[in-house]
Structure formats: structure tokens, C-alpha cells
């Protein structure tokens, strides 16, 4: 009995002593932290894609907790998740339009002129040497830098052309900066019609190096429900994303070079090697 009591007493004393020391130190070296940041971080997807504009999910969580941004800025989270975060913090989730990336080039190997290139197999490196060795100075170089950057495997390399799969793309925008030709833009997910060309050159020059270039023939502008649905900018036509054309435009316009495409059909390979 004595042994037990002594042991208990000794352990208690030791514990109390150490507790005192730790308590005093903890008070002396106190650091303030917000536990909510960690919780919110846990509720985020954790892929650290940076689509929200912050350096990773933890940083974004901190910004939400501090009120610098809103949960819906996360392009990857589902609506349910975003609502959960907002409820947890007692704030409004806000709204953000769902976007997807579009790579505005249709120049696969089959339809473009290319020079033999020997060097680093990376778009940004290749762009520094002979502009990527492609006939078109503005087209997809095809070394998959964007595909490697995509955390969701939404970009496929097909015949030397990067193609976005809209159903996989979350619109995080991680690929945008990797393209040395600035071909990638984030567009409203609801819009399916895009012009797959970015070259501002004259139509004749473009056609010399690429069969699917936009030659600014304006067939699509005329075929559109309203003239403002397609924007003409020099020798290049683009979809007007604030007043987007309807998907049936592709059918109606009969684009002679098939530069006007549906993103979903483009991903499915419907226009591969097609030219009229």
C-alpha cells in the first residue's frame, strides 16, 4: 500500500512540477494562432493549384479567415464544400462563375509547317530557340508544358497539339502561365464555341503555315444570331465571351478552315486533320 501511495505521490509531484514549468514557459513564449485556418485548410481540396490566386490552399484558407477573400474563389471545390466553409466561418460564400481553359490553337502536326527541332522538350525552352521551330509564330509548340502543369490531367497532347478536356478542367488556371505563346485563356464554362487560332497575321501568311488558321472571312460573324457575338480584331475573329454565340453557330457558319470549333467536339478529336 505504501509503495502504491508513494509511487502515486511521486508521479503526481513530478507531473505537477513539469506542468508548472511548461505552463510558465508557454505563457512567457506565447504565440497567437488562429485554429480556424487549419480547419478551413482541411476543408479545401489540398491540390495547391493556385487557381485562387494564393500560394496554395493553406495560404488561401488564411486569406478567407482574415476576410481578404471569399471561399468561392476556389475554382476546384464543389459548391457543397464552399457552402460548408462559408457556414463554418459564418460568412457568405460569394459566387464565382465556373471557367474552363481553352488553348486557342488548332495547329496539330498534320496541318502545320514545322522545322526539325533538337533541344529541350519543353515549350518555354523551345520558345527561346527559333520560337519553337513552328511555321506559325503564334501557335501551340506542342511540348506539353501545360499538360505537365495541369494537376487534373485535363490536357491531352494529340499530334503535337495540346487539347483541353472540358469535363476534366476545373479552371484553376495553372496552365495559363506555362504557355510561352499565351494561347491559354479561361473562358466561361457555359460557352462551347471558340476560335482555335491566335495569330494576328494576315490570312494569306497564316494559310501558308497552317491549314486551320482563322482567315477572318467573317462567315461566322454573319451567321451568328447577333453581330456582336463574334468580335473581329484585325485578321482574327474571337468569340465574345460576354455575349457568347450559341453552339449551333459552328454548324451554321461552315468555317472554311475549321478554326471555329466546339470545345467538346475539339476534345473528342472531331476536327483532327480536317480542312476544306
Amino acid at each position, binding site marked *: 500500500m505504501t509503495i502504491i501511495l508513494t509511487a502515486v505521490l511521486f508521479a503526481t509531484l513530478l507531473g505537477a512540477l513539469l506542468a508548472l514549468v511548461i505552463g510558465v514557459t508557454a505563457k512567457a513564449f506565447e504565440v497567437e494562432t488562429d485554429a480556424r485556418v487549419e480547419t478551413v485548410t482541411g476543408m479545401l481540396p489540398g491540390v495547391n493549384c493556385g487557381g485562387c490566386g494564393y500560394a496554395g490552399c493553406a495560404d488561401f484558407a488564411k486569406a478567407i479567415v482574415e476576410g481578404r477573400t471569399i471561399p468561392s474563389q476556389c475554382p476546384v471545390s464543389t459548391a457543397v464544400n464552399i457552402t460548408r466553409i462559408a457556414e463554418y466561418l459564418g460568412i457568405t460564400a460569394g459566387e464565382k462563375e465556373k471557367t474552363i481553359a481553352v488553348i486557342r490553337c488548332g495547329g496539330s502536326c498534320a496541318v502545320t509547317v514545322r522545322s526539325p527541332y533538337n533541344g*529541350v*522538350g519543353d515549350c*518555354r*525552352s523551345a520558345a*527561346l*530557340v*527559333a*520560337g519553337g*521551330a513552328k511555321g506559325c509564330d503564334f501557335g501551340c509548340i506542342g511540348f506539353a508544358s501545360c499538360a505537365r502543369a495541369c494537376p487534373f490531367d485535363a490536357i491531352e497532347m494529340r499530334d503535337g497539339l495540346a487539347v483541353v478536356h472540358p469535363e476534366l478542367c476545373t479552371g484553376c488556371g495553372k496552365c495559363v502561365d506555362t504557355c510561352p505563346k499565351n494561347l491559354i485563356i479561361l473562358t466561361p464554362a457555359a460557352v462551347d464555341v471558340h476560335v482555335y487560332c491566335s495569330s494576328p497575321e494576315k490570312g494569306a501568311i497564316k494559310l501558308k503555315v497552317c491549314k486551320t488558321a482563322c482567315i477572318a472571312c467573317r462567315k461566322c460573324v454573319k451567321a451568328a444570331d447577333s453581330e456582336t457575338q463574334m468580335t473581329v480584331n484585325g485578321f482574327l475573329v474571337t468569340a465574345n465571351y460576354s455575349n457568347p454565340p450559341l453552339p449551333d453557330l459552328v454548324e451554321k457558319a461552315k468555317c472554311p478552315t475549321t478554326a471555329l470549333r466546339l470545345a467538346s467536339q475539339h476534345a473528342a478529336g472531331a476536327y483532327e486533320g480536317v480542312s476544306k
Partner: protein
Amino acid sequence: MSDKPRKFKGGVHPADSKALSASKPVQTAPLLGKYTVIVHQNIGASPEIVVKKGDVVKKGQLIAKAAGFVSVPLHAPTSGTVTAIEKCPGPACVSVPAIEITADGQDDWGLPFEPITDWQNTDPAVLKQRVLDAGIVGMGGAGFPSHVKLSPTKPVDTLILNGAECEPYLTADHRLMLEQTEDVLLGAAILARILGLKTAVIGVEENKPDAISKLNGVAGKYNVTVQELRVNYPQGAEKQLIYALTGREVPIGGLPMDVGCVVQNVASAVAVVEAVIKGQPSIERITTVTGEPLVNPGNWRFRIGTPVSKALELAGGVKYQPAKLLLGGPMMGFAQNSLDVTVMKNTSGILLIPAGQVSQYTSEPCIRCGRCVECCPMDILPATISQAVENERFDWAEQLNVTACIECGSCSYSCPSHRPLNQHFKRAKAEILAAKRKQQKK
């Protein structure tokens, strides 16, 4: 200066292949029917075009004016009509704006400048203005505007003329020094006057003994010292040349004037003579057209704007298909994929390389042999940096001083694994610069 040939640390010794064209005297290329002058030929701001389609121009007439301090004007290579102002293949295989002039065959000098024969008693500022007006750039390859170098903001005590011509194959400067020896030295004297100096030194690699002895024969008259340099690539790189001649190290990110030096290419010096003494702007240059596949390699005096295809025709065309067409030398030149690119002020060579000699890059792993570390004239670690770049760790590459790299290509030249080291560094430098710009915007 001692008499012993000098060198810098590191470097490589590629086969110089200069014999193909070294003994060929400079020929003047015949007048062509059409010239396509690329507008942006200098480092810095692109000049502003001052002519429009349909304008009639005289030879030497201003066709584009300098836009800012680091920029040079451009002049018509011959008399004729401006027939187009549009894009043409540029030296980086990307289309660039150019002015197309169709010659009228008269080749009439407009003589835009009054010749200054009494240069010894002319105000240096007037001489410097002439260098700017004549549109003279560094003709060794970089194309840096000469008048900028002649306007140092720090005290300068040494004028160096770069006659090293360390690039294999190229012989344009060699022939120039041999055939226009007095002009080179006179140019040095004029440049020295602009800088307020009495003397100048000209560095020549010892594989050009004929040029050295010829220069030595008359150098005294112009107060110029001729210094032999050991054959070692990149001896002609500005920083390495300064080190070999003066023992001074140009700081990373610094300019020669930081160590009291100004370096000018010998061809630029001759262009200065033509601008000052004859009143002629910079509209032609000597270019080596060479390479094993060529029927008749040699050195030609081309007008700016001469298409490469015409230059190759002059050299008799090719015996067989080459693997690469380069503007410049094989170590730092630019590979071309079009024969329509035209001769520019800094085109020191047009070179065809046969398939057997061309360097094929593979991405075999680095075996850490250290060859690149040994030969790097900037004393950085190419092998480690390239691994950093392969893993996109540009912050690490910056820590390893990739920004000091002069892209001489010695590392890629010596790599037994055939790694594209130089391209990695180019990428790293571009990414670091882009990141800095982004930060500044914020």
C-alpha cells in the same frame, strides 16, 4: 603589357575550321534588285520607321530613326523605292518587321553626312554624334549600339579593340584587319579621341599571325598596342577579353565601364572611320560565308538587307544538304529555318554545318564528370544548374548564379552526355527575368 599571349580561365578549344575562308580576300557582292532591311538590328529599342511604301530613297538615306538612347538609326542600303513594309523571317526564326527596298540600279549616294577629315581637331561630342547618326552597332555579334558604349558614366582608362574572333569558321574580322589595317587603327584612334584617351589596345588571337604582324607594322603611328591572345574560346567575349588584357573582372551584371574599359569590335572601328572620314552610314559589312557543304566559301562585303539565299548563291551554292544554317559562328550563332532571312549589321558569318559535325542534343543524364565546371569561363556550375532547371527550380538556379552565364556554350560543347546545357540557362535567365518583372509590377 607583356609580350606573352594572354588568356582567361576556363574555355574550350574547338577545331577552328578557319582555313576554309581565311585566305579568301574580301569580295564586294554585286548590287541586287531588292534588299529587305530588318528594322530591329540592335540591342535595345527598335528604331522608328520614317519612310512609307512608295517612297523613293537615296543610298544611305535615313529610313528609320533611333527611338531612345539605346537605339540606332537605319539607312537605305541602295537607292530605289520602298516597295513594302511588312514582316519577314527574322534571325530568331520569328517574323519581324522589315523594309523592302527595290533598287533602281543607280546606287546613288544621298551622302547624308559631311565628311570630317580633320578629326583630330574636332570636338569629341561631334564625333560621337556621328557614330550615333551613322547607326553603328557592335558588329561582332551582339549588336549593342556603339555610341552607348562611348558614353560611359564612369571613368574609363582603357579602350580595347576586339580582334580576337574566337568563333570557329569566322574569318571576317581577320580579313578586315589584314586588308584594312590602317582603317582599323585609325578607327581605334578616333574612338580613343571620343573617349578622351590617348591610346588603345587591340587584342588578336595568335592564330592570325599575318594580321598581327601587319598591325604591328603600323600600330605605333596611331598609338595603339597590339596584344597577342592565346587561342581559347570564348576569348572574344567582352568580359574574358578584358580579363585577359587587363586582369580586371567585370562584375556580374556589370558593364566593362565598371572596370574602366570600353570594348569595340574591329569592324565597328572601321565603320566609325567610314562614318567620320567618308560620311557614310553603316549600310554594309564584311561577312564570312562558309561551311564544308559550300562550293566556294569566302568573305564578302554585303549590303545590309541581302538575303541569305543570295549570299549562298555567291558562294557557289552547296554540294550537299547541310544540317544547319547559322547566322554567326557555330558556338553562339543562331540556327535558321529560312533562306529569306537577311544580312544584318551584326551578321559576322553565314555558316552551313554538315550533318556529321552538328551537335545532336539528347537528354542523357549528367554523369557529373565536371567538364563543364572546368571549362566555364564564368566559374559557375553548369551541371548543377541544368539539373535545377530540369526540375524547374529557378530559385535554386538563381542561387547558383545562372545570371552570370554569358551563354558562350563551352559547357554544352564539352558535355559528354550531350546535354542542352546552354538552352537550360537561357530558359532560367528568361524565367528569372520574368519573375522579377512580375514582382516589380506588384
